[in-house]
């Protein structure tokens, strides 16, 4: 899927969602559930929801923001009709967007705001319908934990699926792998949210609105945890970026090479059955697989003529150097061995440790195949070409890989790579 196809799909899905939101709002109107009871409680909940919307946690790598309005929406849904809750959620989203526009340096994209409003409308409508169904089937008056939990779970699930769907459309990641990767933290967050929602709703049913601000404390605590986690993730990826930048300053040709190898290595890993988390680690290992070249003389790496034996020995140190660099940091521990062994061969003639088939990690085998292919084919720019070799055509490079399968490369990995390349439709030219 190229950029144009991605953009048109995103626009189409956005329109569909907006239409769905309008329909949901219209149907809600038909239900004639216009209740706006307990004004003080409702206004307090609205205020708390707005404050929660104004202090999101940015997951800046993904462009997503996590807000904490759910418990207060659950409270609103307890005492008000569906229309009131939809209007409240949409209003909070719009007001917060205006506030961000005014106070932040980044300009708000109103198309995304419309999308968020549509997501809110559909999510609230479905969650309230589910909640009302549970209320009808249970006989408890006042505080109904089952109904509250239903609202919380359904809201979280629908919101999660819709946001993930649009995220995958923008980032062109697979929906299934993204859902699986985010499921565990999502479930933990849901458990905590449910507790806060139950507390808010139980306070609301007692009309003790003066206690509601106290429920902001767990929201702030949750937010603090998420912020630090997001910060740690951000630091991790920025360290990778910085190491990459360092390598590219020393060896400029590596830039496009590393990006291409990383992207393709992840896809090959998924095709071979690695779970999404592991495939993501393979991608990170692929970005850093040549970091050891920072300790290699660039004059040798860029030498157009054949290297002497001494020069070859010097170049062959780079996987070991790469492992030494990454081993210093505990968070790179999973990928150290993959980087170290990415030049091993099945027949034991590789380096640095002369490992054979069974001892070579599958991740190293993946990187080896993708690395070799990109070295043969190069990239679209002249700066992506190796100084010592004329680039091959993609099909010729695939033939060469298959020729070396069984000795240099793992045949299963070569096969998976071939299918990945052909599936991605990049026959004409290896393009990023």
């Amino acid at each position, binding site marked *: 899927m190229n950029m144009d196809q991605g953009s048109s799909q995103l626009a189409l899905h956005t329109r569909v969602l907006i239409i769905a939101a309008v329909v949901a709002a219209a149907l809600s109107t038909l239900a004639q559930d216009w209740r706006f009871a307990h004004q003080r409680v409702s206004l307090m909940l609205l205020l708390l929801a707005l404050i929660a919307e104004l202090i999101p946690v940015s997951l800046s790598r993904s462009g997503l923001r996590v807000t904490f309005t759910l418990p207060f929406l659950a409270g609103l849904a307890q005492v008000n009709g569906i229309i009131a809750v939809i209007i409240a959620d949409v209003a909070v989203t719009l007001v917060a967007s205006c506030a961000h526009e005014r106070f932040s340096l980044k300009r708000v994209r109103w198309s995304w705001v419309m999308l968020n409003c549509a997501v809110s409308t559909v999510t609230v409508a479905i969650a309230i319908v589910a909640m009302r169904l549970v209320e009808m089937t249970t006989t408890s008056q006042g505080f109904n934990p089952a109904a509250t939990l239903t609202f919380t779970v359904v809201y979280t699930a629908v919101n999660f699926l819709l946001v993930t769907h649009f995220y995958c459309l923008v980032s062109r990641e697979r929906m299934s792998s993204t859902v699986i990767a985010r499921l565990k933290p999502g479930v933990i967050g849901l458990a905590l949210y449910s507790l*806060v929602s139950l507390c808010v709703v139980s306070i609301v049913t007692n009309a003790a609105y*003066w206690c509601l601000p106290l*429920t902001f404390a*767990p929201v702030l605590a949750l937010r603090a945890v998420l912020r630090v986690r997001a910060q740690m993730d951000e630091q991790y990826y920025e360290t990778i970026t910085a190491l990459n930048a360092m*390598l590219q300053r020393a060896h400029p040709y590596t830039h496009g090479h590393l990006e291409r190898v990383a992207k393709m290595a992840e896809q090959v890993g998924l095709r071979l059955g690695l779970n999404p988390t592991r495939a993501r680690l393979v991608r990170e290992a692929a970005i850093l697989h040549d970091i050891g070249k920072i300790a290699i*003389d660039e*004059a040798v790496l860029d030498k157009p003529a054949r290297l002497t034996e001494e020069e070859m020995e010097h170049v062959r140190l780079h996987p070991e150097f790469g492992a030494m660099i990454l081993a210093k940091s505990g968070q*790179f521990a999973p990928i150290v061995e993959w980087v170290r062994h990415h030049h091993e061969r099945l027949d034991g003639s590789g380096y640095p440790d002369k490992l054979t088939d069974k001892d070579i990690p599958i991740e190293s085998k993946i990187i080896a195949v993708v690395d070799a292919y990109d070295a043969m084919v190069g990239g679209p720019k002249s700066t992506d070409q190796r100084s010592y070799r004329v680039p091959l055509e993609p099909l010729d490079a695939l033939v060469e890989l298959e020729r070396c399968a069984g000795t240099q490369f793992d045949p299963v990995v070569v096969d998976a790579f071939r299918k990945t390349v052909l599936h991605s439709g990049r026959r004409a030219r290896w393009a990023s």
Partner: protein
Amino acid sequence: MGELNGVSRLLLSILLLMSLGVGAYVRWRMTRHCNRRLIDSLRAFSTAMELRFPSHRGVTDAVLDLCQKIAVEMMMPRKQQRDLEMVVHLRDIGLCTVPYGIFNARAEDRWTLSERERYNQHAEDGGAMLEQIPSLRRFATAVRCHHCSYDRLGFPQLRDVSEIPMVSHVLNVVTAYVWLEKTQGDLLACETIRQQRGKALHPVVVDALLAVLTSPGVSQQQLPYAPV
């Protein structure tokens, strides 16, 4: 205005206690863990430069050890001590732009003028690289200035000595000492450092370094970098 019933009170109490616990955990444990992870990951940079230029091997550990002792001696705030530790690992990130041959082909005293200028550029390059990375941006100035001398004759040239962060002054003094000790031995190194006090080297930092070196608990064997 309503009153809370038993269930509400119980839920609210649990949540407030949880919030306190989580808040304390985030404030003391998670934040510390986050900082340690960052410092940990920054070791990769100093290791990369030491592998690129073997003459630098072991220098980072020596510089780090002395910097930590000086920071304690100068009673630096914890945050500044942490920043100093991070800048130690990042200080020579700009050396990746210096050609491999300059350092590894011949000794420093045999460099040509253009090679010397190329080397001097590394502090500025390092700062520029860090400016591109949001979580490391705050160290850009310190890295840029880690060879700035107190008398403004170092590199890069700055208008005012007050522009140089204290962390950079500490690095400048410690790095100078470590290299002098490597080439001339500890006695001459100390003497040179004393002579440059208030000239090329910040006087407060020099006093702290000399206090650390002459304190009874520190002996030659305890220094991580043994002179060649």
